């Protein structure tokens, strides 16, 4: 149970709608560290989180979380494992009919039998940690995008999980909100001893806080290591992604017929 890897994926193959999303992905996510999983849009980074959380099952391969083989868990065991996981969804996924306070209190009310005054204290502590104790009476529709994610973060740490998964936490955030989220992810990891998995394509922010990173593209892991090791990675595809170059091993042009043929020119090469 105390192996250095909290999550271990081995030869994971997963297809959806006839399209192969993962083609033999193997990955170890270390315990107590921040691991960034990066890759171009549409490579299945969110799908990877859903495989770890047991919302999807791989076609083959194993997904082990804290010693449990997730795809083989029965419903009850899976739901109790999920109580040790927190997940921050890209949209925040707050319950729109509940106030900020009630959103954060939701997992506590469902999974514990704590008295009301203790629930109140815990909720206020979690909201304090994300800087939104004063926003407890607001409804989700009254929050900005950054605040929504902070409330969702407070909710996902309400039960003091061992693992927290962040799905594109920086997407669409202004620089201040992004700075706040970077600080929160770093602080929560160190203060609570969490294992954090961060799925993102925001390279500088992710590399600035993660201990370990891996890049997925075309259904495979194309590079992994510490941020410094990745920056010095020999693969052209890794460098193109890290430096955001428009053309390279991943071509600028979507595969097409020859240009001459499309433009009606005779004898020209594409």
């Amino acid at each position, binding site marked *: 149970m105390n192996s250095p890897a909290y999550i271990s994926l081995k030869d994971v193959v997963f297809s959806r709608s006839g399209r192969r999303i993962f083609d033999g992905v193997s990955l170890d996510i270390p315990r107590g560290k921040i691991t960034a999983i990066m890759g171009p849009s549409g490579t299945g980074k969110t799908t990877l989180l859903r495989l770890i*959380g047991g*919302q999807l099952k791989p076609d083959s391969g194993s997904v082990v979380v804290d010693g449990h083989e997730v795809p083989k868990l029965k419903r009850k065991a899976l*739901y109790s494992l*999920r109580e040790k996981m927190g997940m921050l*969804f*890209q949209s925040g*996924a707050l319950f*729109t009919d509940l106030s900020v306070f009630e959103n954060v209190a939701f997992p506590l009310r*469902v999974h514990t039998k704590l008295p009301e005054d203790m629930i109140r204290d815990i909720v206020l502590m979690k909201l304090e940690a994300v800087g939104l104790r004063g926003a407890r009476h607001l409804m989700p529709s009254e929050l900005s995008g950054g605040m929504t994610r902070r409330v969702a973060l407070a909710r996902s740490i309400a039960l003091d999980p061992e693992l927290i998964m962040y799905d594109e936490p920086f997407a669409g955030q202004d620089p201040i909100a992004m700075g706040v989220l970077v600080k929160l992810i770093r602080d929560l990891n160190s203060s609570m001893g969490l294992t954090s998995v961060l799925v993102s394509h925001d390279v500088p922010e992710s590399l600035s806080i993660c201990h370990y990173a891996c890049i997925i593209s075309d259904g495979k892991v194309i590079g992994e290591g510490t941020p410094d090791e990745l920056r010095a990675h020999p693969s052209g595809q890794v460098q193109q992604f890290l430096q955001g170059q428009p053309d390279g091993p991943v071509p600028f042009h979507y595969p097409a017929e020859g240009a001459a043929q499309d433009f009606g020119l005779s004898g020209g090469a594409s």
Partner: protein
Amino acid sequence: MIERIAAFGRLGLDIVSSFGRSGRFLAGVLGGVPRPATGFPLLLKQLYAVGVLSLAIIVVSGLFIGMVLGLQGYTILSDYGSEAAIGQMIALTLVRELGPVVTALLFAGRAGSALTAEIGLMKATEQLSSMEMMGVDPLRRVIAPRLWAGFIAMPVLAVIFSVVGIWGGMLVGVDWLGVFEGSFWGNMQSSVDFVDDVLNGVIKSIVFGFVCAWIAVYQGYDCVPTSAGISSATTKTVVYSSLAVLGLDFVLTAVMFGDF
């Protein structure tokens, strides 16, 4: 030609797989025994949303349908000099047929579509996923109370519809057109049987309530989580519920009232 046959086959497979999914979904919803402490407040909230908020449309529709029945009944029956039978005609029509059927159609349009849109939006905004990831089964937390609320509210609404309709018929028949009040109520009492008419009507509305609520929550849960997907699911709820209600009404009527 081959393509057409293949498309027909695909359609058949889609329909069968959809039935299979909705059956598994229903088993998942009804499979767990809810804890009364958490389940009851959720059920009450949904009973309010699905039942109480549908009252206005049910009462107004019931009143007008009863009044129309009074007018039409009087016009037809007075040709034969038997306008005194108007009470019996209105009551039997409402209790046996129009009460359960029209309530179910209105219920599908008012509450069913709202349920589908609400669940679909919860899916699109990842609220259902986040619930799952918090170790809470959305089938039991979100879907089950809504299904039970529809199931419970429909028969009550149908009874209210029939009562208000009979009152509307009386307003027109007795108060406006001057049918003798004693024969209006007396004929009704002597011809409406509690088991054969009232109870069978209630059984119909229980079946319709279950089917309408099942279709509504399933369409919401199974929808494609986009604006177009939610819109299509909402339409499907109303169309499928209406067709199911009318089809089942024929079957139930044949079983209950058909003398074979």
